[in-house]
């Protein structure tokens, strides 16, 4: 690699890391209520020094701090979570087509959400039961497959089986649900960031942050874990312990994200793919950049769902609609890079 290429790569790396901050500010402007740059600046400053802008309308503060900011921060955290988990599990399973839901998290969470909405009502926070069942589904997969050390195919197959089981249970709950709770459940299943409130963030963002942080710290180790088990063991890796750490951290982040935002598909596949196409397969770069790029991707996707149509498109539906064609394109293009 010559000097200019190294410089170019470093520039791309830094730009991608800064991108979420830039998009966060842009996203604050986007919405049906127009806010001028000056007003936005004043509103943001008023949080730090409340006395300096006494005449700011309360509506402006409410829109920025109670509606837009929590929603944007949630998009940022969820996007980073799903992408980092996806990238990590892809390294661990030595397969770039694995996604963050592969171990049964999505259907576990969906069943939990359904139980909560149908039996505990809309006033009980859906994410608690969703989170418990998301973790429960992965625990069941690991228990049935033997351990994290067991053969990858058996883990993946067990993931499919457990997903099918929770999907059947989900149908059963739907069968007994009232039309109102069914509507709320479908809304949840389609993935949604619009209901984000600070209390949701307070519960889920710390969990997502811990998981992401652990996975980022493990970034180089993930290269070694992406080798065959025999090779990794010969290099002195305690495979059982290290794989378990990656699985637990990925599960924690994905379950926290899914329980608060519903099922948002394809992010964990598309983002790491794009990152690998831009910067290569070294997980030292892939994992942190997936966090930054995933956060940017979901913030941007959320901005688009807010402006393209007169009504809001659920974010999960939107990511699938644009995600699938984009993934096919990337898959065809990236074949030569890593396969």
């Amino acid at each position, binding site marked *: 690699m010559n000097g200019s290429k190294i410089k170019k790569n470093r520039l791309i790396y830094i730009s991608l890391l800064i991108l979420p901050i830039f998009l966060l500010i842009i996203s604050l402007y986007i919405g049906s209520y127009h806010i001028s740059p000056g007003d936005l600046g004043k509103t943001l400053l008023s949080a730090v020094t409340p006395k300096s802008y006494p005449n700011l309308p309360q509506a402006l503060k409410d829109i920025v701090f109670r509606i837009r900011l929590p929603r944007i921060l949630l998009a940022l955290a969820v996007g980073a979570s799903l992408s980092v988990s996806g990238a990590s599990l892809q390294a661990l399973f*030595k397969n770039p087509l694995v996604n963050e839901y592969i171990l049964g998290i999505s259907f576990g969470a969906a069943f939990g959400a359904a139980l909560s909405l149908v039996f505990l009502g809309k006033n009980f926070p859906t994410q608690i039961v969703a989170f418990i069942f998301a973790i429960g589904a992965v625990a069941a997969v690991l228990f049935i497959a033997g351990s994290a050390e067991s053969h990858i195919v058996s883990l993946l197959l067990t993931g499919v089986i457990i997903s099918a089981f929770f999907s059947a249970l989900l149908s059963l709950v739907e069968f007994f649900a009232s039309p109102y709770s069914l509507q709320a459940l479908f809304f949840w299943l389609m993935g949604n960031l619009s209901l984000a409130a600070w209390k949701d963030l307070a519960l889920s963002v710390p969990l997502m942050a811990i998981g992401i942080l652990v996975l980022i710290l493990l970034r180089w180790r993930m290269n070694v874990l992406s080798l065959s088990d025999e090779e990794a063991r010969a290099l002195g890796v305690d495979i059982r312990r290290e794989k378990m750490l990656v699985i637990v951290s990925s599960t924690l982040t994905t379950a926290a994200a899914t329980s608060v935002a519903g099922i948002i598909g394809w992010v964990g596949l598309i983002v790491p793919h794009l990152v690998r196409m831009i910067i290569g397969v070294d997980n030292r770069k892939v994992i942190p950049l997936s966090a930054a790029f995933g956060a940017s991707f979901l913030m941007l996707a959320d901005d688009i769902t807010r402006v393209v149509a007169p009504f809001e498109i659920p974010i999960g539906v939107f990511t699938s609609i644009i995600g699938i064609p984009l993934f096919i394109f990337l898959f065809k293009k990236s074949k030569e890079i890593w396969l």
Partner: protein
Amino acid sequence: MNVRIKELEFGYPNFSLNVRDLSFEASKISSLVGPNGAGKTTLLKCIGGVLPVEEGELYLNGKDLSLMKGRERAQHIGYVPQEYGSTFNYHVRDFVLMGRAAYLSLFSTPSKEDVRIAEEALEYVGLINYSHRYYFELSSGERRLVLIARALAQKPDILLLDEPTSFLDPKHEVEIMDLTARLAKEMKKTILITLHNLDLAIQYSDSIFFMKKGTIFAFGKPAEILNESLLENVYEIKMKIVEYDGRKFIVK
């Protein structure tokens, strides 16, 4: 560093490895030969800690291997598999750098010193100019050399090479075996190598170990041990030993 094995046992459903008492000399090349399924690779993997030893004892310079953690073992023993077992197309230098895993804690990333050691290993196998090439761009022979370089980055005393010459053309076969000889002579590595090519085993080994059905059938220095009836007993076909230019060759 020498390797001693006592009463080693390992079993698959239709196969069991059983080695009573065996030593491999330090800084020499010991080759394991024998028919397919004789247990050569299994023995190598047991020594390398890739497969769990069910019963028996393994010693490195008198130190019990079972008391060592994976990391410590990997600082002494480097295992070179036949091929790379993943789909990700790493740069050659990043690939070799993974050999430093045994020296790095869970959450750390390689230092400049680790990079230097990886580059030194690449230099030794003659592929330093390939540092920024992708692994899958390389030829089979070059890939084998990169796998050896990764094991060298572990800075091991003992190198286990699992059929490093299989599917290679004669030029690359000789290149790999010359490298192996240099590693034993210059770097004082103790080398255990499994081979199917008996001519290479005769030419390069200090000792040959003939394996059959999970046991060591016979062993010794190539010049002393080799005879046609031994070959027939081990491989169950008739072979002739011919001499040319002072060297022995096997004719099937």
